[in-house]
C-alpha cells in the first residue's frame, strides 16, 4: 500500500516538475511571475485533444502540443512583458498583463470547447496494467514518468551543458554584463519562454490523458500548485523546483491516502500551513539564494 502510494506520488510529482520547471525558469531569468502559465498548460491539452479528435495519432498531438504551447508562450512574452521590461515596470505590471493574456487564452478555449469537459477517446493511450510485488502499474503511468524524466534530463542538459544554457544562466545572473559579452538578451528571453511553454504543454497533455478532464479552467489549480512548488524549491532554482515537485506530489498523495476522513477536508490547509512554516525557517525556500526573491524596483 505504501509503495503503491509512493509510486503514484512520484508520477504526479513528475507532472508537477514539468509545469514548475518552466515557471521557475522564467522567474529566474526575468523576475516576473507569468500568471498565463496555467493557461499555456491548458492550451497544450487542448491542442493534443483536437489533434486526436481530428483523427491524428497521439504522438502527433503531443508534438503539436509541445510546439504550439511553446509558441503561445513566446507570444505572451512579446505581448505582455517586452514593453514593460524596457520601462522597468515588469514586476507589478507583468502581473496584470499576464492575467490579461490568461483571460484571452482561456476565453478562446472556452469558445472552442463550448464550455464542455473534453475527454480523449477511450484507448487513445492503450490501457495496459501490470501487477507485481503487490503493485499496480499502468502503462500510462510509466509513460508519464518516462516522459517527465526525459524532458527534465533534456532541460538539464540544455541549461548546464550547452552554449545556449550558458547564455541563459549569464542573463539570469546579470543581464547588462551578459549584453556586454555579446549575448542578445531578447533572443534568450524568447527561447526561455519557448522552453517554458513547451514543458507546460507536455504537462497539459499528460494531465489530460491521466485524469481525462480537459477543461478551459484546468490550469488554475496548477498555477496555484506551481506557485507553491517554485517557492518551496527556492525561486529560480532548477534543482530546487525539481526536488519540491516530487516532495509536493508525494505529500499530496500521502495526505489523500492516509488522512482520517473526518479531517481529510483540511488536506489543502495542512499543505499550505506546512509551506508557511517552512518559509519561516528557510525564508528563501529549500535551495534558493538570498537575493532571488527581493523586489528590484519599489519606486
Amino acid at each position: 500500500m505504501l509503495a503503491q502510494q509512493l509510486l503514484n506520488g512520484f508520477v504526479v510529482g513528475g507532472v508537477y516538475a514539468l509545469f514548475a520547471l518552466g515557471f521557475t525558469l522564467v522567474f529566474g531569468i526575468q523576475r516576473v511571475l507569468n500568471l498565463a502559465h496555467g493557461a499555456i498548460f491548458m492550451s497544450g491539452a487542448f491542442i493534443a485533444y483536437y489533434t486526436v479528435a481530428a483523427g491524428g495519432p497521439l504522438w502527433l498531438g503531443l508534438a503539436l502540443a509541445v510546439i504550439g504551447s511553446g509558441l503561445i508562450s513566446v507570444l505572451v512574452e512579446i505581448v505582455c512583458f517586452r514593453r514593460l521590461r524596457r520601462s522597468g515596470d515588469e514586476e507589478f505590471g507583468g502581473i496584470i498583463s499576464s492575467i490579461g493574456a490568461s483571460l484571452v487564452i482561456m476565453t478562446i478555449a472556452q469558445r472552442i470547447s463550448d464550455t464542455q469537459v473534453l475527454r480523449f477517446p477511450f484507448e487513445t493511450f492503450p490501457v495496459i496494467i501490470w501487477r507485481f510485488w503487490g503493485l499496480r502499474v499502468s502503462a500510462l503511468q510509466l509513460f508519464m514518468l518516462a516522459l517527465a524524466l526525459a524532458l527534465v534530463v533534456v532541460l538539464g542538459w540544455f541549461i548546464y551543458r550547452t552554449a545556449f544554457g550558458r547564455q541563459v544562466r549569464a542573463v539570469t545572473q546579470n543581464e547588462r554584463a551578459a549584453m556586454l559579452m555579446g549575448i542578445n538578451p531578447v533572443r534568450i528571453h524568447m527561447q526561455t519562454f519557448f522552453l517554458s511553454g513547451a514543458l507546460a504543454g507536455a504537462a497539459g497533455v499528460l494531465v489530460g490523458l491521466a485524469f481525462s478532464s480537459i477543461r478551459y479552467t484546468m490550469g488554475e489549480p496548477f498555477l496555484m500548485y506551481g506557485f507553491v512548488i517554485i517557492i518551496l524549491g527556492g525561486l529560480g532554482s532548477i534543482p530546487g523546483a525539481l526536488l519540491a515537485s516530487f516532495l509536493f506530489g508525494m505529500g499530496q498523495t500521502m495526505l489523500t491516502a492516509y488522512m482520517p476522513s473526518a479531517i481529510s477536508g483540511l488536506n489543502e490547509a495542512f499543505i499550505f500551513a506546512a509551506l508557511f512554516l517552512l518559509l519561516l525557517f528557510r525564508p528563501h525556500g529549500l535551495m534558493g539564494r538570498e537575493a532571488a526573491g527581493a523586489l528590484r524596483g519599489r519606486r
Partner: protein
Amino acid sequence: MGQWIIAYTPLVDLFLLHLGFAYAQYIVLRAGVFSLATAGLAGIGAYTAGVLAVKLGAHPALGVAAATLAGSGAALVLSLPLARLRGVYQAIATVAFVQIVYSVNLWAEPVTGGAMGLNNIPRTAGTGVLAVAALGTLYLVWAMERTRLGRAFNAIRQDEAMAATLGVDIVRHQALAFALSGAIAGLFGALEAYHAYALDPGQFAFPFLIAILSYVILGGRNSVAGPLIGTAILIILPELARPLAENRMLIYGVMLILVINFLPRGIADSLILAWRARRLARPEPAAGEP
C-alpha cells in the same frame, strides 16, 4: 433618473464594496509589504459577521465591530512571521494564508455551512451604509497620506535600509499597515455578508485575490486615487461590454494588456508622472522679455 438609479444600484453596491477591499490591499502595498492576504482577511471578517448574525442572532453593529476586530487581529498575528520574509516570498506566504482560510471555511461545515454556503443572513447593509463606509475609508487613506505615518510608509517602500537609518521602525510600521488593512478588509467583509444574503468560501479565494490586486495595480499603487480609478474601470468595463456577451472576458483581457503596456505604473501614477515631467520640461520664462 429614478429608473436609472434602480437599474444600476447592484453595480454601485458592488463598486463600493470592492473599493473598500482595494484600499485594504493598497495600504499594505504602500508600506512596502507585498502581501496578498486581503482576500483571506476579508473572508475572516465576512464569516465572523455572518456566523454571528445567523447562529447567534447578533445585532449587525456588533457583527461589524467583531469582524473589524477579527480582521485586524488576524492581520497583526500574520505580520509577525511575515516580517522575516521579503518580496515574492511574502506574496506566496500570504497566498498560502488565503488558501488556509478558504479550506478551513470549506471544512468547518457545522459552523460555516461548508460548500453549501452560509445562507439566510439578514440583509441590513444597503447602498447608504456601503457609501458611508467607502467614503470613510477613502478619507482615512487620504488623511494618512498627509501625516508622518504616510511619509514613513513611503520611505519604507522606497528604501528600507534608508528608512531604518532615518529612525523609522520598519517592523512596527509594517505591523500597523497590516492591522489597518486587516481592519478595512474585515469591515468590508462584514458589509458584504450583510449585503448579499449568503456567503460561500470560494468567494474569498484565489480569483478574488487576483481581482483586488488588479484594481490597485491597474489604477496605480502609489497615489491615493489609484485604487479608485482601477476599481471603477474594472467594475464598469465588463458592464459596458455586456452586448459582446461571450467575448466579454476576451475584451477585458485585451484591455488589461493594452492599458498596462502603455501606462506601466498604473493609470493614476503614470498620468501624474507624465504631468510632472511636462511641468519640469517647460522652459522658464526669460526675465528680461516684455
